[in-house]
């Protein structure tokens, strides 16, 4: 603790949240093509706002990419996520049959040909439902994260850059949101929703999730704003928008990306929790949370109907957390 009293408790709050997601470094070797492709697209996206001079060969992003390519954690989680995206786009390619077509006479039966995971309490094929359930989880995770990241970094970034009254108000608003337990807010807001689509759930997550990213973006922008190159750009007469977009954003966005990736996993988990409580997604939507919730009634007689979707959920969340972890290790210059 350097100074008696941190003048802005919110910066430390942001760091704290980043630390909560702190997950350890691993460093072995190994490469694989699919993950490389995914990483390449990631790099292109990250590189787009980068405008370093040609003479400077290595940017933070190219360094990070070199590290990531050699990180087995990144490769494994990247492959797992690619697989998930694939089955959420084309679930029919690895699972035959209709997830909504159930046969009560087969209820709670165990593993058999055509149904490797057995049947659940309503006689639905657990394998088919688990495969089809990936779609909503991935959709909710990706859309909620995109919404939260965009809203949070725009609000937090602007507040951090301009400071003043807007910043003070925004900081108090984020304090307010932090004081409300997430699951509780979800129960209250979503208990009135009757729609069975994923959009109310995503909307709720964006509404309650943005303050987290906003704090981190704000702290990151405040740190970046004090750098010499930003002062130089200001002295050269650069406009606010140019400084924000060309100088600050590429250098301040790394913590946001890391926290957003880890948060993606937790949003998937939150969706399942809300569905378990009966307020998230509703049947006939096929979702791991709904399946786990309905299987919990038959947990004594047919635990397999609970274990498979729960396992799929855990692996998905784990993959995103590990990916975020690997990206964090690669982007954190202190660890280098």
């Amino acid at each position, binding site marked *: 603790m350097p100074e008696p009293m941190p003048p802005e408790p919110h910066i430390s709050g942001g760091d704290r949240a980043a630390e909560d997601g702190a997950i350890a470094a691993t460093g072995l070797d190994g490469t694989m093509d699919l993950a490389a492709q995914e990483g390449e697209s990631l790099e292109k996206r990250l590189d787009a706002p980068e405008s370093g001079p040609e003479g400077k060969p290595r940017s933070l992003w190219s360094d990070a990419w070199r590290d990531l390519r050699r990180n087995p954690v990144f490769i494994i989680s990247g492959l797992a996520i690619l697989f998930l995206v694939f089955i959420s786009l084309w679930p029919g390619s690895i699972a035959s049959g209709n997830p909504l077509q159930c046969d009560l006479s087969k209820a709670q039966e165990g593993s058999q040909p055509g149904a490797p995971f057995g049947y659940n309490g309503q006689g639905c094929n657990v394998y088919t439902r688990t495969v089809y359930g990936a779609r909503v989880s991935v959709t909710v995770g990706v859309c909620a994260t995109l919404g939260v990241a965009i809203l949070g970094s725009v609000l937090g970034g602007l507040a951090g850059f301009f400071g003043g009254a807007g910043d003070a108000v925004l900081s108090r608003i984020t304090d307010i949101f932090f004081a409300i337990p997430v*699951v*509780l807010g979800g129960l209250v807001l979503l208990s009135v929703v009757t729609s069975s689509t994923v959009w109310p759930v995503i909307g709720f997550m964006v509404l309650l999730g943005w303050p987290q990213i906003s704090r981190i973006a704000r702290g990151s922008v405040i740190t970046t704003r004090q750098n010499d190159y930003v002062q130089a750009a200001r002295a050269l007469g650069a406009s606010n928008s140019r400084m924000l977009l060309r100088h600050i954003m590429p250098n301040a966005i790394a913590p946001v990306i890391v926290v957003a990736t880890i948060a993606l996993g937790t949003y998937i988990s939150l969706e399942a929790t809300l569905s378990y409580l009966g307020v998230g997604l509703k049947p006939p939507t096929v979702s791991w949370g709904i399946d786990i919730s309905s299987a919990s009634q038959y947990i004594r007689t047919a635990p397999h109907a609970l274990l498979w979707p729960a396992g799929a959920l855990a692996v998905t969340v784990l993959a995103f957390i590990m990916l975020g972890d690997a990206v964090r290790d690669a982007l954190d210059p202190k660890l280098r």
Partner: protein
Amino acid sequence: MGRYVIRRLLQMIPVFFGATLLIFLMVNVMGDPIAGLCGERQCDPATATQLRKEFGLDKPLWQQYATYMGNVFTGDFGTAFNGQEVTELMASAFPVTVRLTIVAILFEIVIGITLGVVTGLRRGRPIDTGVLLLTLVVISVPTFVTGLLLQLLLGVEWGWISPSVSTEAPFDELIVPGLVLASVSLAYVTRLTRTSIAENRRADYVRTAIAKGLPRRRVITRHLLRNSLIPVVTFIGTDIGALMGGAIVTERIFNIHGVGYQLYQGILRQNTQTVVGFVTILVLVFLVANLLVDLLYAVLDPRIRYA
């Protein structure tokens, strides 16, 4: 110190009112509380109007909020629609959840910090990797899955515990639910302690302490641990509020009649008074816990002085 506390208390006021107003608005968006009162049937319009007048629901929303807050400060949290005082519900629910939270926090402190210290001191060894992987798995499995699995294994298959907790909820019945509630935070505490210990282990003051010839045990407990615990204390402090609010899932699995249970029932039955009242208390707990954590800093780290 005194001035700092006063400033922090003043800062808490807008957050408190903002959070309660937000939940007040959310609950009112939730639906017509009078409709909830009539249960599944359609309300008689005349009765509904009369009830609305009686409960003050015909007034504008901001006036309802002001009246409610005014009552809260005199200790009147209103009456649930079944005629029970909300304070009565609180008196029965909060002790249970507080016990559950205490069990959870104890798990975090004892297991989390121990594992963190052990792995932090043996960084890179098999035990470190093993515990790290374990924490990752615990973080990835949602709490309700952990809870259901433990309930199935310990309660149903092996019969070590009773699958559901009795109404009194004594401490010994809350051990497994407390562990479930703590599980994710436990993993975070382990990781945080590990990182912090591993960082501070190379600090100068640790080398000095070892050079002075102090026993290893004393170096670790008095020098290393005290300095490494600051981020952990922050986390555990902010977690108190989150645990109490997040107990909904755990309480539902193990049928514990605590705050989460009352809130869940309140939300299902559109019982606005219960929901707003309980959330008000939860917000207060969260804010006070945060303040205490900041004050604890000064105790743990003598370099920090609040002006």
